[in-house]
């Protein structure tokens, strides 16, 4: 499926294709807390290089995932995407706001509203779902505000720094 729209303008955010400079900005603002939000170690050494961010952006572009870079105040702050399953007419949602200055201020909710409208109205999907680490309370609240409902908790689904952690499954249907 072709990406039907390449940019979307919200109140404070612009969703647009990746461009030159995004990988640099993504590597610059990266913090270990970001890795932890995705179920990675909170304490391990090492941080992504510009090259690794660029390598990450390319496959996202090639995979057929509908994705956008998130821009606010004229700068790259993260990315968002929906990976469509054509047979199921559904998609998996994922978002990463890399810049900590934009956490906890409703940016994720604004992005979700734009992307959900795109998924349901432009792509005609009937369901959008996601999986989030149970301890990522801020993200869960954002998804709930955006209309996602909790569908389940996968107990001890993955390990972080030696501790087993739960995953939460959430989804929103078109009529919701």
């Amino acid at each position, binding site marked *: 499926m072709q990406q039907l729209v390449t940019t979307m303008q919200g109140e404070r955010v612009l969703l647009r294709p990746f461009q030159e400079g995004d990988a640099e900005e993504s590597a610059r603002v990266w913090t270990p807390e970001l890795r932890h939000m995705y179920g990675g170690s909170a304490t391990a050494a090492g941080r992504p290089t510009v090259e690794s961010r660029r390598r990450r952006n390319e496959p996202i572009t090639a995979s057929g995932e509908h994705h956008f870079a998130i821009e606010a105040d004229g700068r790259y702050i993260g990315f968002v995407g929906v990976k469509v399953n054509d047979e*199921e007419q559904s998609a998996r949602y994922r978002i990463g706001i890399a810049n900590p200055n934009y956490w906890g201020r409703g940016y994720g909710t604004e992005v979700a509203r734009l992307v959900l409208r795109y998924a349901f109205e432009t792509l005609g999907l*009937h369901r959008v779902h996601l999986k989030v680490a149970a301890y990522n309370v801020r993200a869960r609240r954002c998804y709930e505000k955006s209309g996602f409902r909790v569908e*389940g908790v*996968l107990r001890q689904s*993955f390990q972080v720094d030696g501790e087993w952690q739960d995953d939460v*499954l959430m989804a929103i*249907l078109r009529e919701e």
Partner: protein
Amino acid sequence: MSDAQVRLRPHTEADLPNYVTWLNDPEVTQFTQIESGGITLEGEREWFARVSAPDSNTRNWAIEVDGRHIGNCALHLDETGQVGGFGIIIGDKAQWCKGYGTAALREVLRIGFGEMNLQRIHLTALALNARGIRCYEKCGFRHEGLQRRQHLKRGKWCDVVCMGILREEWEADQCSNS
């Protein structure tokens, strides 16, 4: 029926013609997330090569009852090798409702927790698969979620049930059963 009749063995290429027959039977796949039709021996051979490769994270077993091949089951490990996803099909329809699936699953749990040292085994099932879900409950799986209208089955949206069992729960079951 005793569990002793049911045996798991690594599946082989010689099992593939049975898979083709079973998976192309709409009655066999009616409660599964696989759809019948278009399953070929060629396709199954490719799949077999993939899951048999040294870097494969899947373990497949043929289910035998008194030496007769009646179905297949598998564990798909995640990238850490500590969490496994379970799948099963009893293809020989004459052998349905005899508790063989339950016996096979108990053996997979023993291998998964007892030998492979997994922490968690989980599965998904169509909500309309009442018999399967009862079997999973009997074996100690707990309901963890309901994915609403997740799967399109023969033109109808179906809810998908998520279930899981943890190592501690399985170990506790072993104590209370013995």
